[in-house]
């Protein structure tokens, strides 16, 4: 069993599904995604936290130029891989309630997307990574552009151009670094990490890579594509974007930024941290007065990502581990929440708070699912959101503890997410579910069996990760520890 299989299964599946031109396509897609989940869980079970890189494939791609196709899984990869294999089946299942035209293409693209995502999370050589990184954009673009809302063409085009622009900078940076490798050249992450650049080069390369990641996350002020894209895309695309795709960028900080450019990362840490903190507050404040539930979630996601992006830049175990576990938690919560909104919109035809009231009268079970996901999102202890936020804020304060006043002020500002998060999430929850039911609420029905089947595992994860977060923290810990230690040595 190797990492390659994790890519091949959804890739082959997507090709198969493309050829099934009937409603059966979605079932086949689901079966394959479940097979992928089983593979992923097997790998997670077999995974040894202290064993470094595992499940490797080293294929030669362009041997004459030293370009390899190297896949592998270590403690940094395992968390986003678990996230991907866990979420995709439920994203597929969540789409069952809607009829999409050309289901074969729709579900095929989702599987293709999964293959690319896994590729990003397993690639250990730069050009393979870049291939998957760009490869992930194509299916999501088509899903959003073909099945999205009224403004989809304009919005998705902007999203596409914006992220491609970022990727281009990244490609230039990679090519430059590749050219600096000795001998026949190599694009292996481990070889690139041996390169020693002077300070200016590190800074330039840092921004080349970081802007690509910053757009994808997105981090303030590179985020303006996000609310429109989230609200115009069909629910499964929004889930893929917010649940998994933005974690590509966070993960990449760990894999490609810090190991190769430790000094550049360190030098720019303060600036990025400030952008992250601004994003936390900025997104949360905007979310408070939005009417469209999808936009509330979009801004909430933006706010949460602001905090997550800080994790690595704290140069603290605590913060880095916090951002690792928060990736997983946020992905689960946001996918669940977008699904809840999708269910409401399917039934009532509305997703603006001003049109909704009292849905709980007709949908008590949905209310419970909604509430659990909401608690995870606002970071109540014993749900998954708490651990990450606590560790991230701890890490932030520790990072600046040399100046305790500033450290506590930063911590308090970042911690505003606890307060504002409660404000906008409760406003959304109460606005839609509570109150005297209006005419639109009469259309409401409670969750179907399939929907419950999707929401239950997500909610179980919310609780499980909150009660026993160490299960996941343990997996990434040795890798994070090594990464930070070697980075700190290089900076000195």
């Amino acid at each position, binding site marked *: 069993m190797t990492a390659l299989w994790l890519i091949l299964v959804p890739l082959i599946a997507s090709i198969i599904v493309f050829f099934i031109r009937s409603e059966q396509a979605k079932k086949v897609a689901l079966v394959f995604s479940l097979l992928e989940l089983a593979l992923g869980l097997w790998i997670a079970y077999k995974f040894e936290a202290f064993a470094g890189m595992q499940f490797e494939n080293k294929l030669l791609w362009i041997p004459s130029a030293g370009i390899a196709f190297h896949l592998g899984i270590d403690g940094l990869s395992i968390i986003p891989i678990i996230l991907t294999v866990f979420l995709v089946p439920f994203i597929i299942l969540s789409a069952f309630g809607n009829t999409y035209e050309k289901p074969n293409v729709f579900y095929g693209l989702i599987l293709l997307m999964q293959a690319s995502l896994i590729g990003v999370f397993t690639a250990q050589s730069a050009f393979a990574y870049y291939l998957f990184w760009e490869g992930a954009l194509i299916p999501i673009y088509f899903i959003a552009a073909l099945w999205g809302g009224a403004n989809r063409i304009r919005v998705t085009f902007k999203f596409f151009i914006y992220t491609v622009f970022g990727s281009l900078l990244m490609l230039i940076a990679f090519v430059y670094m590749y050219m600096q490798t000795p001998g026949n050249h190599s694009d292996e992450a481990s070889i690139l990490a041996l390169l020693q650049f002077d300070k200016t080069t590190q800074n330039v390369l840092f921004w080349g890579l970081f802007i690509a990641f910053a757009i994808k996350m997105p981090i303030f002020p590179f985020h303006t594509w996000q609310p429109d894209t989230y609200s115009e895309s069909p629910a499964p695309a929004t889930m893929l974007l917010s649940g998994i795709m933005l974690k590509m960028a966070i993960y990449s900080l760990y894999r490609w930024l810090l190991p190769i450019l430790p000094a550049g990362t360190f030098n720019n840490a303060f600036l990025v941290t400030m952008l992250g903190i601004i994003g936390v507050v900025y997104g949360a404040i905007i979310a408070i007065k939005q009417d469209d539930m999808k936009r509330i979630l979009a801004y909430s996601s933006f706010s949460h990502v602001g905090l997550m992006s800080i994790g690595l830049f704290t140069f603290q175990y605590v913060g880095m581990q916090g951002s690792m576990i928060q990736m997983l938690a946020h992905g689960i919560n946001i996918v669940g929440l977008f699904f809840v909104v999708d269910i409401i919109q399917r039934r009532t035809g509305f997703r603006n708070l001003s049109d909704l009231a009292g849905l709980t009268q007709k949908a*008590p079970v949905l209310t419970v699912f909604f509430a659990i996901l909401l608690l995870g999102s606002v970071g109540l202890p014993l749900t998954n959101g708490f651990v990450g936020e*606590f560790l991230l804020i701890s890490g932030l304060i520790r990072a600046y503890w040399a100046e305790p006043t500033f450290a506590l002020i930063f911590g308090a500002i970042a911690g505003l997410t606890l307060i504002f998060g409660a404000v906008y999430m409760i406003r959304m929850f*109460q606005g839609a579910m509570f*109150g005297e039911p209006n005419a639109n609420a009469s259309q409401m029905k409670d969750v179907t069996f399939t929907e419950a089947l999707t929401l239950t595992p997500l909610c179980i994860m919310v609780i499980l990760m909150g009660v026993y977060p160490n299960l996941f923290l343990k997996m990434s810990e040795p890798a994070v520890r090594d990464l930070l230690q070697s980075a700190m040595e290089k900076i000195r």
Partner: protein
Amino acid sequence: MDTKTLALLTLLFPLIGFIVNGLGSKKLPKSLISLIAVLMPLASFVGTILLFNAFNAQKEVKPLVLAYYDWIAVPGILVSFSLYIDQLTLLMLSFVTGVGTLIHLYSVGYMKEDEGYGKFMAYLNLFMFAMLMLVMGGNYLMMFIGWEGVGLCSFLLIGFWNKNRAYNAAAQKAFVMNRIGDLGLILGVIMIFILWNTSEYKDLQLAVDLSKNTYKVDSWQLVVVTLLLFIGAMGKSAQIPLYTWLPDAMAGPTPVSALIHAATMVTAGIYMVVRSNFLFSLAPTTLTIVLVIAIATALLAASIGIFQNDIKKVLAYSTVSQLGYMFMALGVAAYTSGMFHVVTHAFFKALLFLGAGSVIHALHHEQDIRNMGGLRKYMPITFITFAVGTLAISGIPPFAGFFSKDEILMNLYARNPILWGLALFGSAMTAFYMFRLFFLVFLGDFRGTDEQKHHLHESLLTMTLPLIILAVLSVGGGLLNIPEIFAKGGDKMAQFLAPIYETAKKLNPDLFKPHKISHSTEYALMGVSVAVALISIILAYVVFVAKKAVPKAETEQKGLAKVLARKYYVDELYDAIFVKPIEKFSKFLGDIFEIAIDFFVEGTGQLVKFLGGAFRKLQTGNVGVYVFAIVLGAVIWIAFNWLKSL
């Protein structure tokens, strides 16, 4: 059964109740729901008694640290899922589970007709679980689980009748205000980790002891840590400036007000400070701030209470005020006195709320005391028990409140007589507004509608039984800690709790010096405070019974009374300086600033498009132009090289 399992079960019983009743709230028969809901907290109560025995049976009585598994383990932050059983835990456990069980029993009668009965009982059980977690947790993060958990339950239960948007707003306000406090608390915990590398109570006491030369008494680290923790206490225990959620929280069903917003949850802040006494005692500056805020809160809330006409609002403000008294005790490092008042207050305030609930139930959700009166005849048990509660809160001997409040007053006097005077003024107001309430509800003639009068009845046994038990406790609760001048060695609670202050005593002995008040002064102070209470009661009697005055509506008041009736306009103030500006800012960012940023993004795209368009024009296809460009380029290149070679 070993203690570890026993403690875990004591914690988990109510959670089991929540899960069973939560899943079966629509399907299970009501009688089964009631049985489970009441038996689970009762089981925890029994568990508490067994824990008491196990604790005392130790050869050497010391705190039990029970660790179950590693909850969060990251280099620098190790948090185990651990429980901590010491004297303070046992004290809290016994009244939380005891009063909790009684209120569950009461709820069976009170909520029987409600369509959400199963859900309600499940939420109450969940609350019990969170509250037990709060007091049993072995470190600050375990406490924080319970801390936020009770906040969640408070939110769920305030907004229990969720069709009502006003109730929902009250629930949201409670949750958000608590979260403001929680942020302070969590920052404090983070700082504890940075300074001492642990948050386990046991290890932390040792670490604080070891670092006594690094972080000296009143060093900024200790002051900041304790202030941050205290911000958490302000939110949960409704102190200035975070108290305005508690009166609004009365939107919840009355048993909720009794359990959560009077007897247990709101005292979590006091518990936390007492639990952290080895930190607070080392930060006298913080204690002074606590004292000032406590006095201000107690007086402010008491003065508002005088002009409220909603029976539950009066009790709510009295709770805020009484919490202020507890914090006053903590402010002068009289932790045991604070805890003593927590316990007696739990008895008499739960009693008063449940009595109020009995009245509201009988009057079909009438809460305005102007429409009550003369209920003595119709509801004799409620009347007598409510009288006991009122006497207890007013500090009339020998009721429980007298002893606990007097201890606090005594400690304040020992610090500074002015503090004593202020607190005395507060207790005069307390006696006045409580008897105003009592007289208007139970004496005189009934002022409600004939329809209401026709239906007046005493409540069922499930409701009156808890009233009777709580009344007995409100009479006898003072026996827990009798002052020395009445009975030598009567201060049982002080003796019992003494071990939990050992670290603090060792590190800052000055703070714990016994005060030197002579017995005669002590008698005199007691006499004065009783006399003041009696005068207030007589005053209330003259106004509301002899003269049969009925208060005006809050909106019709004039002058100072208007300011008090409108609660000093604090809600309006918060709305104007926090809520409205943030909402406006949100609109500004969302509608204007976002577009401005996007303008740059789109602008870049437009620029590229424009340049593309401009350069496209160069490709005219006219060979003459191309030749001209080539020649021009060549000339410039030659000229450039020639200039460079000069």
